[in-house]
């Protein structure tokens, strides 16, 4: 081999070595990065494996809304649309800037798979409005057209399903209740509205609770529960005086009376009406010797300590 050929061979070897040096750390990064691993698993059509990676990423960084969104993607790919919707909604609540065409597309698809016709229509409309010329909007138009032939589930079934998932998936439950409340001809519309209020309070969307139509007074139990939820929403927004006024406006019936008294005590404490709060707490303590009341008593004592310091 001539000297020149030897030099060329050495240079080529050096070039390969340099390229490997440049590429090697990237491979290491992907291996250490659960999100990248999750997407890699999706590329290999292994949704369960991808979901496990995304969940690991979310656990490693619970504050990341994007990671929650990827967990939703993992559930979607795995065919678990309720969990997918829950995680999409949670991520959106945590960081509204996450919205893009793909996000809206997946959310609409979740509603579609769950049979939430009204919610699906709204979601496709939001997607088309977001970017009318995108490929996702085209898919949305097609889906909206095909969905018109689909019959929506009965309100009762929606309420049942919402209640089943409420404790673990409150966002998904709220979607079920909202869908049931949107069915105009349903006899369960009031119930759906009341339970939507409960679910919205659970996920801390208090403003939306205040926008809901009140329950008719003809059904005292539901009307009371709705009023209580409105008061709870006002309390959640720290509008304590309005919450107190709402609680005092009506006499709550049996099934929600204990809760109303509890919430009233909380409002009195927050409003600094210590004497009334002390009396209310004493009354509550006589009938409810529980952890929850103990919390209120502790809070009242804290406020009193605060006043003494002041």
């Amino acid at each position, binding site marked *: 081999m001539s000297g020149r050929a030897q030099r060329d061979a050495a240079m080529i070897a050096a070039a390969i070595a340099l390229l490997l040096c440049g590429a090697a750390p990237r491979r290491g990064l992907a291996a250490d990065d659960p999100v990248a691993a999750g997407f890699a698993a999706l590329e290999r059509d292994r949704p369960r494996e991808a979901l496990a990676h995304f969940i690991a990423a979310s656990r490693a960084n619970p504050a990341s809304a994007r990671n929650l969104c990827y967990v939703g993607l993992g559930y979607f790919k795995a065919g678990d649309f309720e969990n997918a919707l829950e995680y999409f909604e949670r991520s959106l609540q945590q960081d509204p800037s996450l919205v893009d065409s793909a996000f809206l597309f997946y959310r609409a698809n979740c509603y579609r798979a769950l049979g939430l016709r009204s919610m699906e229509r709204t979601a496709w409309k939001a997607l088309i409005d977001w970017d009318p010329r995108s490929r996702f909007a085209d898919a949305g138009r097609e889906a909206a057209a095909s969905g018109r032939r689909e019959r929506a589930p009965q309100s009762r079934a929606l309420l049942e399903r919402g209640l089943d998932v409420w404790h673990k998936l409150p966002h998904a439950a709220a979607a079920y209740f909202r869908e049931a409340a949107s069915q105009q001809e349903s006899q369960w519309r009031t119930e759906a509205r009341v339970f939507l209020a409960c679910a919205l309070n659970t996920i801390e969307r208090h403003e939306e609770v205040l926008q809901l139509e009140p329950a008719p007074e003809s059904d005292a139990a539901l009307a009371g529960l709705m009023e209580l939820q409105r008061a709870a929403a006002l309390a959640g927004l720290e509008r304590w005086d309005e919450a107190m006024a709402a609680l005092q406006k009506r006499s709550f019936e049996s099934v929600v009376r204990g809760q109303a008294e509890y919430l009233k005590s909380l409002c009195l404490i927050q409003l600094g009406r210590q004497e009334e709060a002390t009396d209310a707490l004493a009354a509550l303590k006589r009938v409810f010797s529980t952890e929850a009341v103990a*919390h209120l008593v502790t809070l009242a004592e804290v406020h009193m300590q605060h006043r003494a310091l002041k």
Partner: protein
Amino acid sequence: MNTHEALFMRLLLAAFILLSVARQAGSSSDGRTQRYTSLWLRQAGSDAASLVEPGSVRAARTDLPDRAACTRHLLQQSQWTLLQRAGGALRDARRDLFRKRVRQRVRAHLRAAPALESARVRLQRASEAGAGRETADALAARDARAVTDPVATDTKLELSVTATEETTAARTTRLIAEGDLTRPCTSIGTRDASDRNTELTPDTSLDRDNTDVRPRNTEPTVRPGTDGTGTYDTDSAPGGNVDRRKLP
């Protein structure tokens, strides 16, 4: 080194620099986010070609029992929410009170105190503030557990207000009728007064309300109320019917 070799070396150097830059970009947070976004869009793009089957997940139960029983069931199952909300408000208020207001006010008070105030008084107040903060942290931690743990938060509030003027027979009849409100069932409308004590099975999806499925007495223990108008069943208290071993 001839011209050809020099050019080749420059090309190699440029390639190495580009690779290094790309690697750094890939390892930085922004670079990773961009990469994830492109992967996310790629996945969505492939999914956009095929939509999911509409209504592929359906609520299974479509039987329609009587409306009143269903409403009672729904009410029963909903009640933990308010307590959860109240617990959250309590936690936030307490945290706010301790961490912001109390500390600020104590500091302001100490700053405004007369110059000749003894060091002992200052020390005492500072220690009180410190103790308060510790208490707040402990309580906030307990509340956080209570809010995140459905067993601790899903406290049961049940109907049990009774008119004191009622006769025993009338009260018994009414409590039997209202007994439906105090026990959840696995499927709405599947039980009536005759099977109440025998057919209940725990529904694990509904957490603590279903933990107690013992046969229910038709004459629950009642205690005089505070306002002269009614009595409360102790089980109806917030957190009254819970497994206390699970409480923080």
